[in-house]
């Protein structure tokens, strides 16, 4: 879940006011598209959720963690409740599919037994059974993003946030991937997806939050959006 109240964010180095009084409420189990033109502040909003940046003012609550007050030492604990997916997959190139996913469990101290049980299950869920031994370079873009989603899912997060996960994929792969997110959401995980692609958003009857110039300009218009 996410609670944003009057959130302001300025980047010190450029002085850019990236977010200017954002209010946003995402409840447990929701599926939300976050859309908006380039530079509107979508990635900035994501970074506030993941704790990569801190807001100047306002209220930021993510999975019950107060992100305005959270101590750096507590960030790992908070991040374990979150699965993050990026446009560029961010896989470890010299690790095979299985290890890329298992790695995420290993670094949070999961037991070997849990890893051996959980990883194949998640890989099957994202449709990568039989690809375990491949390196990322031996996979298509869509498959690589599925590995990234498997990695995000493997520690059973409460929420998945994805910043333009289909940005590098063709429309068919994009649709397939979005169906996967929908499936994950139906299994109980909250999903927040940033995207540019109008057709994709319109293909689903989901809540759409529009953001422009650091403001939320509309919220709700299910399955429809346009910006001029």
């Amino acid at each position, binding site marked *: 879940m996410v609670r944003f109240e009057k959130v302001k964010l300025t980047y010190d180095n450029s002085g850019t006011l990236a977010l200017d009084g954002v209010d946003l409420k995402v409840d447990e189990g929701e599926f939300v598209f976050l859309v908006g033109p380039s530079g509107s502040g979508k990635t900035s909003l994501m970074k506030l959720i*993941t704790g*990569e940046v801190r807001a100047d003012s306002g209220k930021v609550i993510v999975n019950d963690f107060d992100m305005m007050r959270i101590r750096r*030492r507590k*960030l*790992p*604990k*908070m*991040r*374990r409740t*979150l699965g*993050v997916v990026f446009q560029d997959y*961010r896989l*470890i190139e010299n690790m095979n599919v299985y290890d890329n996913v298992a*790695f*995420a469990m290993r*670094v*949070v*101290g999961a037991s070997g037994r849990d890893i051996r049980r959980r990883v194949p299950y998640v890989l099957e869920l994202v449709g990568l059974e039989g690809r375990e031994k491949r390196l990322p370079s031996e996979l298509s873009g869509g498959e690589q993003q599925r590995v990234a989603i498997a*990695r995000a899912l493997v*520690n059973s997060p409460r929420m998945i946030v994805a910043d333009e996960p289909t940005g590098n994929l063709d429309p068919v792969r994009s649709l397939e991937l979005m169906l996967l997110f929908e499936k994950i959401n139906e299994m109980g995980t909250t999903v927040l997806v940033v995207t540019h692609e109008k057709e994709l958003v319109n293909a689903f009857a989901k809540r759409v939050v529009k953001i422009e110039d650091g403001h939320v300009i509309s919220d709700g218009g299910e399955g429809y959006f346009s910006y001029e």
Partner: protein
Amino acid sequence: MIREGFRSIKTHGLMSFATVTIIMACLIIMGSVALLALNIDRLIDDLEDQNEVVAFVDDGLADEEEAKAIGNEILKVNNVSSVEFVSRAQAMENYMSKYDKSLMEGIDETVFRHRFIIKLHNIEMLKETKLALEEVPGVAKVRAHQEYANTFVRIRNIVSGVSLVLMAILVFVSMFIMSNTIKLATFSRREEIAIMKMVGASNGFIRLPFVIEGLVLGILGGGLGFLAQWGLYNLVTGSLMDSLAEGFLSPVQFMDVAPMVLVIYLAIGVLIGVFGGVNAIRNYLKV
């Protein structure tokens, strides 16, 4: 994760090599200076052993000319090679030049006795000669091992001081270089570190492979530095012994100090390695 540390060393072969070399070089420079100081120390000890004997003239013989005359008697003693007379005035002056003058204010020269500085042919007979000297009429007391090889003490002090400063600087320099070397190595792994952070790995966990990498490189640098130091030391002392009259110099045997050198080298290596490793990833852990 221990495997991670070793994996990183393998993939960054050149960097690891550079780091180990730098640690080695630092240790060898430090070690050479320290061993030089140790040898000077030893030399001082030797010189002290071989040093002059001082014979003090009986207080009753206050007259300088009278006292001086005893010198001829001393010269007749077996094993005495030379005699030098030092008056009480000279003795006080020598004494005061060595110590704080303000402490000496009001001290009369009569506190000091006339004395003879005596050089011996054969130090091995020092004991017998000392006894014989004490039998000479007019000699009150004989002191051996007394006059220190001041120059060497001063040189030793300078060398120790310089080596301490040098060591401190070198430790920091090598830590810095080590840190940068690992930093370069971590650069290629920053994606991996970012991923680890994103899935909620603790800082300690992320740091561990780098600490291990630093540890292994430090131990390697310390161990190899020790071996190189050993070879170098024996080479230098060996050629010194060849070129100089045998027996004149008796350098410290490396084997005598080897355990200490090894322990110190490993300790410094580990120190540099671990601190370098931790420092290198500090920036990556901030996010």
